[in-house]
């Protein structure tokens, strides 16, 4: 009897499991259906303010198609919450916080609606975002995400710390790797700051977007980590970038231990890799300057590309009133709403003519102009199968060889590239 009961429970559970099958929402919902819908917004305070105003504006004109806006439920990450909502079939119609790196997984789950299904959608996206929209297409050539806004990353530096270190605080030499390292050594040896730069050294898959990847994009002139199904990380450029960071870690210019706070904001680090959100955060407390991310030979700012750190909007397959959802998506990404987003958050709408369209804003707030210029030269994460696994594979190799110096970069990156090739080739 002692053994019969557990065995029976196991058999019962297996039976239930094998009997369960997918069913539920209509994957072929009518793309013209209209009515009230729900959308999710990021829990970022400024984005919430924009989203609330946008929804009010929509609702005032569409009494029969009311939009209800909610914050993305709390979780370890938005992607985790969205993935669970897709599986449960209770994702909202639209989520204005869809990470491009998660799109392949959401698509595989059957959780996303191809926007190409809507009349004029492809033309709308191409016209709004221009050629940059190409990198948001999925391998089947369709858009499962609306390119929405970017946070192009650049190097922000603390002028007071630079001055204390005896470096020209208005134009610190940070263009080439040699200059960057030399400046970093001065900062450290002078005691002006505990660290020259303090990117998070932890092993989460996304951390490489804020240390290796922007410099890799700049060094390669705009390559993605994976191109045409092949990993690019082990190229000569990739190794140069890795060796640059390895030097920073080996010499203690970038600490190997995570900092539990804002290292730049608290003056622990002289530099940081940030997006335009940093302007609002640091302007009251720090005199700062901006530089493009460095390259080995030093490229002019106007030629330097960087990581976009974009968050996009996407329509989810559980949505039954897709006609309304598509109209809301267009409304939220209209010129007027993009302007409101820019004004409220400082984040850059993924539009072709950003500086010209919102010339008044950039005249009033010139601090954002460098980021706006940079927004025209951004590169996204590759839209390939197993995207997150690929980034985790890369991060593990990077931690091992660059941060902790346990293996030569070429060996670790070579092994990682082989795995990435296999992962990117899977369907």
């Amino acid at each position: 009897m002692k053994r019969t009961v557990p065995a029976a429970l196991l058999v019962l559970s297996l039976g239930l499991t094998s009997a369960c099958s997918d069913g539920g929402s209509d994957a072929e919902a009518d793309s013209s259906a209209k009515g009230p819908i729900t959308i999710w917004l990021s829990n970022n305070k400024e984005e919430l303010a924009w989203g609330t105003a946008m929804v009010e504006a929509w609702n005032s004109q569409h009494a029969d198609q009311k939009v209800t806006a909610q914050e993305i439920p709390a979780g370890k990450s938005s992607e985790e919450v969205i993935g669970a909502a897709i599986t449960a079939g209770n994702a909202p119609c639209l989520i204005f916080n869809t990470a491009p790196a998660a799109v392949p997984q959401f698509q595989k789950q059957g959780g996303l609606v191809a926007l190409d299904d809507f009349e004029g959608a492809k033309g709308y996206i191409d016209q709004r975002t221009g050629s940059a929209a190409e990198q948001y297409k999925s391998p089947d050539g369709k858009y499962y995400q609306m390119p929405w806004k970017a946070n192009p990353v650049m190097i922000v530096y603390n002028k007071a710390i630079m001055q204390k270190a005896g470096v020209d605080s208005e134009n610190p030499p940070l263009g080439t790797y040699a200059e960057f390292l030399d400046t970093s050594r001065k900062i450290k040896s002078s005691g002006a700051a505990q660290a020259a730069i303090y990117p998070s050294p932890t092993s989460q898959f996304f951390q490489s977007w804020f240390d290796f990847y922007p410099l890799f994009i700049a060094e390669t002139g705009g390559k993605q980590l994976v191109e045409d199904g092949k990993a690019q990380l082990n190229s000569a450029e990739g190794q140069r970038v890795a060796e640059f960071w390895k030097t920073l870690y080996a010499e203690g210019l970038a600490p190997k231990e995570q900092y539990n706070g804002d290292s730049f904001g608290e003056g622990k680090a002289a530099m940081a890799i940030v997006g335009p959100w940093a302007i609002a955060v640091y302007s009251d407390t720090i005199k700062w300057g901006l530089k493009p991310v460095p390259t080995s030979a030093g490229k002019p700012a106007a030629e330097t590309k960087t990581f976009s750190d974009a968050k996009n909007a996407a329509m989810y397959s559980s949505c039954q009133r897709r006609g309304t959802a598509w109209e809301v998506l267009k409304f939220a990404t209209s010129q007027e709403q993009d302007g409101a987003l820019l004004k409220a958050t400082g984040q850059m709408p993924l539009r072709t003519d950003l500086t010209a369209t919102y010339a008044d804003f950039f005249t009033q707030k010139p601090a954002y102009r460098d980021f706006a210029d940079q927004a025209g030269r951004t590169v996204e994460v590759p839209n390939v199968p197993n995207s997150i696994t690929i980034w985790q594979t890369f991060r593990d190799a990077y931690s091992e060889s660059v941060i902790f110096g346990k293996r030569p970069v070429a060996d670790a990156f070579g092994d990682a590239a082989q795995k990435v090739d296999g992962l990117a080739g899977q369907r």
Partner: protein
Amino acid sequence: MSVRLTRGTHQHPGRRPVTALLGRHPVGLALIAPYAAFIVLVFAYPLGFAVWISFHDYFFAAPGAQVDRPFVGLENYRAVIGDPGVRQAFGNILVFLLINVPLTAVLALTLAVALNRSIRGRTFLRVAYYVPYVTASVAVVGVWLFLFSSDGLVNRVLGPLAPDPSWLVNETLAMPLIAVFVAWKQLGFFILLYLAALQTVPKELYESAAVDGATAWQRFRSVTVPAVRPATTLVVILATITGANLFTEPYLLTGGGGPNGASTSPVLLMYQRGIEQGAPDVAAAIGVLLVVGVVTVSMINRRLLERP
């Protein structure tokens, strides 16, 4: 003879099938039904589902999505066993258990014996040991980060004796530090178990030992330790099970299993593979191997500890 007759007269032939089905106490069945349902829904079904997933090419999909989830036999297990990251995680958790479980048992028993005596501030101390157990891990981890970071309090006290690299970025020290942290955090609960067990030890045994001239150490070794053996079995098995499910500490204290994977635990890997990377089939295979490992270790522990 009379007994047989009595029984025979009380067993009505019509009742036999009902009695056979529901037992002699049908009300008891009703009383255990909620817990049985809980076990089936929250434990047995997910466990069975995990086993099923581990033998299929499975991923989470939207309701109504047409997806193929073919049976793949041992493919997921082959992938897991061939993955150096998984092998490292199981090695890490073994290191953790080897430090954490004995440390927990020894400290909990020692402190329970001390707290069982009439000492000044006993109630305060009992509560003090229990506080970390009921405090949110996130808050407690914050304190330990303050203590053990490179420029933290511990390194300042140690001065030139501070380890280099520092505790949390030292591949040799990171997992042992987590093991000590978890032992400290959970100590209050295990002390309570031992305190309860100590109440059942007859005082006469100590008096008798004292009369025989036994020292305090001899009384502890020959009376206390054998008398609380069932509690020790429970402590060791519970510490093994909770320790094998380690997640929060490497996730928060060492930034996701760092440095360089030295504190990655199997459950952290399950989270990464299953939730972040969308491979619940691989995560399920890791989970099944972990369950098998924990059950095996627990059974060995039980055999060893319950042996007279």
